C-alpha cells in the first residue's frame, strides 16, 4: 500500500494525538496550546496543498484519493486554520479544557477528510459518525454548562435520528443492489433507479448528509447549536462542516448518473423548503448567531440547486459555493467573535456603532453580508450565478424563480445587519475596539479573497471544474 497517499490524514491524526498528550500533561498554559494549534493547522494547510496532485486508491479500494477529495481537504484545512486563528482568546471554553477542544477540532477535521475520500458505504458512515460525535462533545464544552449541554443534547438527538434513518437507507440500498462500493453502485444503480425500493433507499441514505448540511427536515438543530456552542465552534460548524457535507453529498448523488424523476424532484422540494424556511425565519431573529444559522439553512438550499442539476456544471458550481460560504460565513463569525470579546452571544443591536468602534471590521462584515446576499462584485454573487446558471441549463426555471424570490427576501435581514453596524446610533458613546495586527492582516486577506475571487474567479472555477470531473 502506498502510504504517501495517506499523508494528510496521518498528519491530522498525529496533530490530534499531540493535543491528547498535552491534555494528559495538563501543565500547558492556554497560550501554548493556541500557538501549537496555530502552527499545526498552518502546517496542515501546507501538507494539503502539497498533496493536491495525488491520485490513487487505498484500503482495498474503499478510500479514494483524487483531485476532488484533495481540493475538499485543502478547503477543510483552510477552514480549520481560520477557526484556530480565532481561538486566541477562546473565552467560550474553560481554560483547562482547551487542549481537549483542539484535539476534538483536529479529530473532527480528520473525520471530514476521511469522509470526502471514502467511496465505501461503511467507511462513509463511520467517518460521518466520527465527525458528528466530535462536534457533539465540543458543543458541550461551552463554559456556560446549561446552555452548552442543552444545545449538545438537541444536536445529539437530531443527529442520532438522522443517522438511524441513514443506516436504514443504507441497509435497503444494500438489499436492493448488493453493493457497498460507490464504484459498483455507479454501474448497478442507474437502471434500478425507478424501482420504489431503490428510490426510498437513496433518499433515506441522503438524510444523513442532509443533517450535516442542516437541510429541511433535519435543520432543527442549527439555530440552537449555533447559539449554544462556543462562538469559534459555531464558526467551524458553519464553514468546514458544510464543506464536508456538500462534498459527500456530491459524491453520493453522482452515483445516480444523469437521472431525472423522483430523486431530482425530491431534492427540488427539499431545496425549496430549506431556503424558504431559512429565509423567512431569519427575518425575525434578534440573536446574530441564530440569524446566521437560519441563513445557512437557506444557503444549503441554494447549494442543493447546484447538486440536483447532477451535471458537471452544477457540481463545480456547488463546490465553488462551498468555498464562497467558507470565506463569507467565516468573516461574519470573525466579527461576532471580536465584538463578543467575553464569549457571550450577541444581539443585532449590539453591533450598533461598529463602524466607529472598528471601521475595518464593519467594512468586512458589510462585504461578507453582501456576499451572502449575492451582490456583485463579491464571491457570493459568482457562486450563486454559477449554481443558478447550471440549473437554468437543465431547464429548472420555476426553481430559479423561487430561489431569486428567496434572495430578495434574504436581502432584508442582511441589510438589517449592515444597518445595525453602520446606521444605528449606540445608546452610549462607543469605546473604540482595538484590533490587533494579525487580525487586521487576516481581515485584509479575507476581504481581498472575497473581492478578487468575485471579480476574477476563473482560476478557481477551472479548479472546481477539474475537481468535480473525476466524479463522473
Amino acid at each position, binding site marked *: 500500500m502506498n502510504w504517501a497517499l495517506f499523508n494528510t490524514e496521518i498528519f491530522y491524526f498525529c496533530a490530534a494525538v499531540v493535543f491528547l498528550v498535552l491534555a494528559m500533561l495538563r501543565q500547558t498554559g492556554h497560550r501554548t496550546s493556541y500557538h501549537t494549534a496555530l502552527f499545526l493547522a498552518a502546517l496542515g494547510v501546507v501538507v494539503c496543498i502539497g498533496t493536491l496532485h495525488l491520485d490513487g486508491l487505498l484500503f482495498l479500494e*474503499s*478510500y479514494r484519493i483524487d483531485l476532488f477529495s484533495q481540493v475538499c481537504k485543502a478547503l477543510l484545512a483552510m477552514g480549520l486554520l481560520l477557526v484556530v486563528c480565532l481561538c486566541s482568546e477562546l473565552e467560550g471554553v474553560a481554560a483547562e479544557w482547551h487542549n481537549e477542544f483542539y484535539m476534538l477540532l483536529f*479529530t473532527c477535521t480528520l*473525520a471530514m477528510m476521511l469522509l470526502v475520500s471514502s467511496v*465505501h458505504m*461503511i*467507511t462513509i458512515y463511520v467517518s460521518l459518525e*466520527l465527525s458528528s460525535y466530535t462536534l457533539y462533545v465540543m458543543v*458541550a464544552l461551552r463554559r456556560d*454548562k446549561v446552555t452548552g449541554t442543552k444545545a449538545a443534547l438537541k444536536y445529539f438527538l437530531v443527529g442520532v435520528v438522522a443517522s438511524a434513518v441513514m443506516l436504514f437507507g443504507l441497509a435497503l440500498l444494500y438489499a436492493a443492489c448488493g453493493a457497498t462500493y460507490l464504484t459498483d453502485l455507479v454501474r448497478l444503480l442507474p437502471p434500478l433507479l425507478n424501482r420504489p425500493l431503490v428510490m426510498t433507499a437513496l433518499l433515506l441514505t441522503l438524510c444523513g448528509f442532509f443533517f450535516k448540511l442542516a437541510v429541511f427536515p433535519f435543520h432543527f438543530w442549527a439555530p440552537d447549536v449555533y447559539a449554544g456552542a462556543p462562538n469559534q465552534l459555531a464558526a467551524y460548524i458553519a464553514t468546514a462542516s458544510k464543506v464536508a457535507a456538500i462534498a459527500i453529498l456530491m459524491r453520493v448523488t453522482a452515483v445516480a448518473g444523469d437521472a431525472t424523476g423522483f430523486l431530482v424532484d425530491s431534492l427540488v422540494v427539499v431545496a425549496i423548503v430549506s431556503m424558504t424556511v431559512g429565509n423567512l425565519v431569519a427575518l425575525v431573529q434578534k440573536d446574530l448567531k441564530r440569524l446566521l444559522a437560519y441563513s445557512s439553512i437557506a444557503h444549503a438550499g441554494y447549494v442543493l440547486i447546484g447538486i440536483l442539476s447532477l451535471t458537471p456544471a452544477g457540481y463545480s458550481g456547488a463546490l465553488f459555493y462551498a468555498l464562497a460560504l467558507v470565506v463569507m460565513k467565516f468573516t461574519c463569525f470573525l466579527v461576532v467573535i471580536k465584538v463578543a470579546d467575553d464569549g457571550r452571544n450577541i444581539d443585532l443591536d449590539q453591533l450598533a456603532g461598529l463602524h466607529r468602534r472598528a471601521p475595518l471590521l464593519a467594512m468586512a462584515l458589510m462585504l461578507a453580508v453582501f456576499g451572502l446576499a449575492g451582490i456583485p462584485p463579491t464571491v457570493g454573487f459568482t457562486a450563486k450565478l454559477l449554481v443558478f446558471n447550471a440549473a437554468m441549463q437543465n431547464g429548472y426555471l420555476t426553481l430559479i424563480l423561487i430561489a431569486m424570490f428567496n434572495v430578495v427576501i434574504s436581502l432584508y435581514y442582511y441589510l438589517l445587519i449592515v444597518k445595525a453596524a453602520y446606521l444605528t446610533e449606540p445608546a452610549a458613546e462607543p469605546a473604540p475596539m482595538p484590533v490587533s495586527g494579525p487580525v487586521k492582516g487576516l481581515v485584509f486577506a479575507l476581504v481581498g479573497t472575497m473581492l478578487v475571487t468575485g471579480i476574477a474567479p476563473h482560476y478557481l472555477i477551472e479548479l472546481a471544474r477539474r475537481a468535480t470531473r473525476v466524479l463522473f
Partner: protein
Amino acid sequence: MLLYTILFYLLSALILAATGLAVTRRNLVHAVVYLVISFFGSAMLFYLLGAPFLAALEVIIYAGAVMILFLFIIMMLRVADFEEQMFPPGQSIPAAILALGYLGIGAVLIFSDPGSRAPLLPAAAEPRVFGSYLFVKHWLAIEVVSLLLLVALVGALYIGRANKARTVATVNKENV
C-alpha cells in the same frame, strides 16, 4: 426450510414485542430487562442466519456487558422518579399515525420489490472468516471506530467531571 421460516417469524415477533415493551415501560429497570430479551432474540436470529460467532458476541457484549452497565447507571443515578408522561397524547397520536403510514408504505415497498422474493442460500460464517473479513476488508472503518471510541471517552470524561458540583439528575431535569 419451513421450520426455519416459522422460527424466523417467531423470533421476529418476540424481538418486536420485547422492544415495544422496552420503549413503553415507565420503570427503567423493567425496560432494560425487556431490552435484554430483545437482544437475546436478535442473537438467535443471527444464529439462524448462519452467523454463530456474531450471535455469541451479541449475547456476551450487548445482553451481558452493555446491559449490566445500563443497570449500574440506572441504579446509581436514581432517575426513576419521573412523574410526567413522556409524550402527551397531542404528540404521540400524530407520531403513531405517521409511523403506521410509514409501516404501510414500507411494507408495500419491500414486498413489491423483486429482490424481496430472492431465496437466501444457507451459509455459515466461521469466526476466523468473519474476523479476517472485518479486520482485513474493513480495516480503515475499524480504525475510525476506535477513534470514535476515544472521542466518546473524552466526552464522557468531560461530562462526568463537569457535573461534579451538580448531580447529573438536575441537569437532566432542566433539559427535559
